């Protein structure tokens, strides 16, 4: 058990050493895998959106249009009328997290299993949330909003600035790590058939749900910040 956890968490994650100054600049495995995810996504985007027409559309364009409208409706409903301008960012993060969680299907290690990746995503979220508040209310009113509804509660509001990204990052990381650990255990016990059935739940369903939860919470915070 301990060896497996060590292998998953403590192993040297460096894949490429780039000479930099008088040392090495390390590129982690998670970064390379997220490059692969990005490459897949870019190829999909180019293939799906090339050659769009106004009249006499192809089946592919009809499918893309209905998918885009559907996902925009889902995110727009979460964000509300005022913050609808943030929908493209939320959808981008949703698609990226969903694909990185599902990359385990082709045998790679999901980049979201690295704490650094989820930490970066949650820091981006909290910066966006606070920026949305500043843009909407102006710096003075934004600072004042920390003392609402009472002055006594200011400490809690400031603390929330750190708790929110920590909980976002830990939730995503813990879920993906937990799913991977359970899958490894099952592969040790029953090497055939059962892992394939369970990976439908742990890789596809859980990955999508966690991506949705991440974006749901981010858009909830944005909605709260611009009110």
């Amino acid at each position, binding site marked *: 058990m301990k060896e497996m956890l060590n292998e998953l968490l403590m192993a040297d994650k460096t894949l490429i050493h780039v000479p930099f100054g008088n040392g090495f600049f390390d590129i982690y495995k998670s970064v390379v895998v997220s490059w692969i995810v990005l490459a897949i996504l870019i190829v999909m985007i180019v293939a799906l959106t090339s050659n769009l027409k106004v009249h006499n559309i192809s089946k592919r364009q009809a499918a893309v249009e209905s998918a885009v409208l559907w996902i925009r409706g889902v995110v727009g409903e979460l964000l509300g009328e005022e913050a609808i301008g943030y929908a493209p960012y939320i959808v981008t993060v949703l698609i990226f997290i969903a694909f990185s969680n599902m990359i385990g299907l082709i045998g790679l290690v999901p980049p979201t299993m690295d704490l650094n990746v989820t930490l970066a995503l949650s820091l981006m979220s909290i910066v966006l949330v606070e920026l949305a508040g500043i843009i909407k209310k102006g710096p003075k009113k934004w600072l004042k909003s920390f003392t609402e509804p009472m002055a006594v509660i200011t400490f809690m509001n400031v603390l929330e600035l750190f708790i929110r990204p920590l909980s976002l990052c830990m*939730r995503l990381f813990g879920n993906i*790590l937990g799913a991977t650990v359970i899958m490894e255990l099952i592969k040790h016990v029953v090497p055939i058939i059962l892992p394939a059935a369970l990976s439908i739940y742990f890789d596809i369903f859980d990955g999508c749900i966690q991506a949705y939860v991440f974006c*749901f*919470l981010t858009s909830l915070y944005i909605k709260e910040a611009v009110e």
Partner: protein
Amino acid sequence: MSLTAIGAAIAAFTGIGAGIGISLATAKATDAVARQPEADGKIMRLLILGCALAEATAIYGFVVAIMIILFS
């Protein structure tokens, strides 16, 4: 080693709280949908929010258990 295993097992008991929380939330959501089927979109969103927050406690327990095993 044996005491470490017991510590990790105690940390895994956080799952009880998360299980009770999620089951209560789901039960109430089912009730609400049965009463007002037209509001199921809103109820679904609130249910997912509640489940995500309740489930976070179990995740914290899991992270603590892994830390106990790794750093003991």
